């Protein structure tokens, strides 16, 4: 079978896949955000079903458990009229038998239009994308990237603040293992925001400053003058005396509570990719503050952003008239 033609370069997003935010231009990001913005109202309509992706097939392939990201992609696809199938596969079972490449080839033979893939290993989604003929969206690979999360964060900020340029954003928590942090660092820098990371050195990756951030070990100093505070989820299994000594010590020094938040700008927004560990990285009082916390809004933007990504990555095939499996 012949590969489909490459997407046309004049569509605003000249990429076949969405594997990360590293390397995307400001124009490409803005293109996706503008389209996503137009889909926010679709989600709020009583009659929200659209038909742009009618006849298209989206397969969600999750090698790592996830509820919200998978549901968000499912809804995004369905609201655009696509047929969406979700598969959860235990990576531990795959590792011993069928290889990742076999799985990719099998699904490829069913001619999906988009594969949405989450995988616990960094680089696995890229490996898979090299073996299939359809568009691939990275829904999170190991500690590498989670581009739709960064896009939905950017959309949330943009709608609240009008833009990202010139804002100071602090990302706090387990930067070392976080794909959300990496995707956000690249995207925010590209759109002209200043990025800080705040964590104990055990949770900061080597030479993180080279990614274009300022790093802080002291939460109050790091939060000083910030417009946006992004908290990251801390895996509790990393807390028992390995990367940090205990949950209570972590919360004492790195958990976001009202007291530490006073260091940030008075109108600073609080974000979290979820699911939250209340009392570990974030205090409930702060998380539920309706004036400051935009955590639920992030979830809503997630669907809009994923609609924009699904549409963009299928649009070009349509234009070229080469949609296989239709």
């Amino acid at each position, binding site marked *: 079978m012949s590969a489909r033609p490459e997407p046309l370069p004049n569509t605003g997003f000249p990429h076949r896949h969405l594997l990360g935010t590293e390397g995307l231009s400001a124009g490409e990001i803005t293109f996706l955000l503008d389209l996503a913005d137009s889909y926010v109202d679709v989600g709020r309509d009583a009659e929200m079903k659209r038909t742009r992706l009618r006849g298209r097939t989206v397969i969600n392939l999750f090698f790592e458990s996830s509820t919200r990201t998978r549901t968000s992609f499912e809804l995004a696809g369905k609201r655009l009229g696509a047929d969406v199938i979700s598969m959860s596969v235990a990576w531990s079972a795959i590792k011993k038998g069928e290889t990742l490449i076999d799985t990719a080839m099998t699904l490829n033979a069913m001619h999906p239009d988009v594969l949405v893939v989450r*995988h616990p290993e960094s*680089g696995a989604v890229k490996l898979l994308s090299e073996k299939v003929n359809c568009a691939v969206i990275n829904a999170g690979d190991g500690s590498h990237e989670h581009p739709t999360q960064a896009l939905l964060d950017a959309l949330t900020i943009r709608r609240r603040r009008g833009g990202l340029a010139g804002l100071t954003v602090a990302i706090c928590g387990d930067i070392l293992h976080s794909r959300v942090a990496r995707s956000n660092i690249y995207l925010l820098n590209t759109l002209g925001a200043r990025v800080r990371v705040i964590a104990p050195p055990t949770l900061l*990756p080597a030479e993180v400053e*080279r990614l274009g951030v300022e790093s802080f070990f002291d939460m109050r100093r790091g939060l000083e003058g910030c417009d946006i505070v992004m908290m990251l989820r801390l895996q509790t299994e990393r807390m028992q005396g390995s990367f940090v000594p205990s949950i209570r010590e972590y919360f004492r020094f790195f958990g976001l509570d009202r007291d530490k938040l006073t260091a940030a700008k008075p109108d600073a927004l609080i974000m979290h990719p979820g699911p939250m560990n209340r009392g570990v990285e974030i205090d409930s009082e702060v998380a539920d503050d309706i004036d400051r916390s935009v955590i639920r809004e992030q979830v809503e933007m997630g669907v809009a952003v994923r609609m924009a990504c699904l549409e963009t990555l299928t649009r070009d095939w349509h234009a070229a008239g080469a949609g296989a499996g239709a």
Partner: protein
Amino acid sequence: MKPIPATAKAAEAVAYVNARLLDPASGLDGRGALVTRGAQIAELGPQLFAEGVPDGMAVIDCGGHCLAPGLVDMRVQLREPGEEHKETIETASRAAAAGGVTTLVAQPNTDPVVDDVAGVEFVARRAREVKLVKVFTYGSVTRRCEGAELTELGLLSEYGAVAFTDGLRAVADANVMRRALSYARTFDLVIAQHPEEPALATGVMNEGELATRLGLPGIPAAAEVIMVERDLRLVELTGGRYHAANISTRAAISRIAEAKARGLRVTCDTAPHYFSLNENAVGDYRTFAKVWPPLRSEGDRAAVAEAVADGTIDAIASDHSPHDQDSKRLPFQVADFGIVGLETLLPLSLEPVHRGQMALIDLLACLTCRPAEICGLAVGRLAEGCAADLVLFDPERPWRIDPDSFRSKSKNSPFDDHPVQGRVLRTVVDGRTIYQADA
């Protein structure tokens, strides 16, 4: 490779004329001829056959190319017994022959581990049956390479184990290492170490910006020098003989240089990928560049190249580590570590020579007499009475590496399409031509 009939018969004399003779052990580098009789070098020199070759002697015209002792590769993983789908003693021997390697020393990390006399004898027997290159083996320092109980170093060496190492595993326990170095003095044996502090070496590539961007756990350069420093203290304490394998960092090189200056009995080696590639070869999750220790920063790469040129690094080994496709076509973090190297050892090692960093004869010392000396092997020399193990090569001939053409069962090389200069033309073991390049 079928032996070439003209040179196959024992005790027959073969004249290699019109050669550039290179013997790093004696410093000989000049035009001349060499004659082998049976399995030995009978005579060599600039004036030999000046009056013409006597009748009845087979003649090989070297075409002005380099004739040197066959390469001695002091670190090869054979995978037999246990993982014959990746490599066997036969396929590794064919790969060695094509790479100009006439003697190789196998790592003991097979399944089962070469930790008893039967293991040593198995390798020797298979090598005799294959009858291509000379295959020796390390014995493991500890049983099953588990780092706890010492193996029978004395008995193993009596049966032919040339040195001792736990392969890719560092002997982590300081007391076990102390006893190994100390006990090995009884028989004047070398303990070769894979010097990485295992608790720090849990990542999959060099620690730094690239690992951070790729979201992969890194191995800090310090993991190497920490183990080297500890081991050097133990060498000082015990008076043992120590060899650090696969040196990849500037810091470790400078510690080893200091130890040598202090008169400790210390040697070290590296592999071509540590001076011809840096961590950027990992690029976009290229698992073929996943190797242990990891490819390092550009600064460390340059330091390894300098240390090869100035002689701080005694030997270059291929670090031949065959892996099948299924072990490499995986997400980076779960793919196996290792690069195949037998067939690229010479051309990649010639890079510092072509860059003008060192003389050809000094480079050849790293590939012949010096590793032979470390392992106590009477090979790697071009002299009367020595084994007729030879490599004929053209150091200038340009080509591009093509892993698909490898004799090795495994093709896991990051040097696909890498341009190199230097081609093996003929490989001779005990007077027998076992490899000849296509014209």
